[in-house]
Each structure stands twice: as structure tokens, then as C-alpha cells.
């Protein structure tokens, strides 16, 4: 079974803090994704990566950056957290032309 893990299930941070969300997959997938999920808005793509050190902006990249130094790990970085970044963050991975597999999500609260 594909396994996608996220470093934290719940996270509470203060405005202005730098926040790191980590995602690890164990299936040697080329592609990895970060989404945020908000009520009534569904899932929106923040960034994705199709190879190590490669990244592409999704639909809502503002206020976020990403890092992919190793194939199995994809990090989402909030350089200076703001209250409007309070959300559920979901990571996903996929091999080319295959289905996306999702992690359990990180619920982030920014105070």
C-alpha cells in the first residue's frame, strides 16, 4: 500500500512565525502536491513538484514556498504565517499517469 505521511496532525502557530509542514511518501513517486482545504472551497492546489528540486506554482501559491531536496520528501513553508493561512493542509503523491494518494492532513491554526 502507498503511504503518504505528514509530520503533524495538528499545529498551532503565532502570526509571523515561520512554519514547516513535512510530507513523506514511500512509493518512489515522481510527483508530489500540497493542497489546502477550506469549507465551501474544496481543495486548492498550492504547489506541486514533478522531480527533485523542481517545483511549479499551483492556483494559490502566494504566501507559500516549497522544497524538494529528496524524492520522498516535499516540504511546504509558510515564511511568515498569517491568520488567513489557518486551514487543513493535504499532501499527495503520484507516479506519472497514476492516481494521487493523500496523506491524513495537517490542521494548522495561526493565532
Amino acid at each position, binding site marked *: 500500500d502507498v503511504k*503518504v505521511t505528514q509530520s503533524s496532525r495538528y499545529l498551532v502557530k503565532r502570526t509571523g512565525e515561520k512554519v514547516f509542514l513535512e510530507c513523506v511518501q514511500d512509493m518512489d513517486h515522481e*510527483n508530489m*502536491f500540497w*493542497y489546502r482545504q477550506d469549507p*465551501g*472551497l*474544496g*481543495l*486548492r*492546489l498550492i504547489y*506541486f513538484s*514533478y522531480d527533485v528540486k523542481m517545483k511549479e506554482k*499551483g492556483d494559490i501559491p502566494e504566501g507559500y514556498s516549497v522544497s524538494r531536496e529528496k524524492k520522498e520528501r516535499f516540504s511546504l513553508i509558510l515564511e511568515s504565517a498569517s491568520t488567513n493561512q489557518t486551514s487543513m493542509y*493535504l499532501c*499527495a503523491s*503520484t507516479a*506519472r*499517469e*497514476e*492516481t*494521487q*494518494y*493523500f*496523506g*491524513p*492532513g495537517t490542521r494548522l491554526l495561526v493565532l
Partner: protein
Amino acid sequence: AQSVTQPDIHITVSEGASLELRCNYSYGATPYLFWYVQSPGQGLQLLLKYFSGDTLVQGIKGFEAEFKRSQSSFNLRKPSVHWSDAAEYFCAVGARGYFGNEKLTFGTGTRLTIIP
């Protein structure tokens, strides 16, 4: 750009009754289509997917969906729901291109409540 519409925000169904969740998409070519389910506090689990071929797709947990090109729809059905089906359901469309189906656009979701 592709888009997905799930017109029903919330549906309530009696246990044992049939279910149909609606999904309409907008995409210029033949899309990849998916249904995912999310239980409270969990990530998304794939129910089924359509890439090509037979337009009636069978998935896990007794779900099926039918791709209707003329109606730009991919509705999810189940003949008899169980209390454990209470969850949120997301339809998604994948853009074909250099990266294949990797870029998904999701609908806003339909929350399903089951009453005894």
C-alpha cells in the same frame, strides 16, 4: 482551464436508500475524472476513477459512476447506503498534458448524512 461543479452542498439519505451525487465538469478534451471520499479528520481516499474505455466505472465500497460526455457529468451512485458512508465526497478532474493527470481540480464537495 478545467472546473468542477458539485451542485449539492449537503445531502441527507436514509440508511438502505439509493444515492446519487452529482458532478459536472468543464474541460476542452476528454478528462481524467475521479471521486474521492473524506471521513471526518482524515485525508482523501480514492473511490473510483475514469481514464478511458467503459463509461460505467466500478469503485470500492459498492460505488459506481458513469461518465456522460454529452452532459459533461460524472455522477456517483450507490444502490443502498450504509451508515459508514457518511462523509464528504469530492469530484475531481485531471488535466491531460505533459504531466498527465497530475494536476487535479476539485469540486467544493458534497457532505453526506445518513439517517437511521
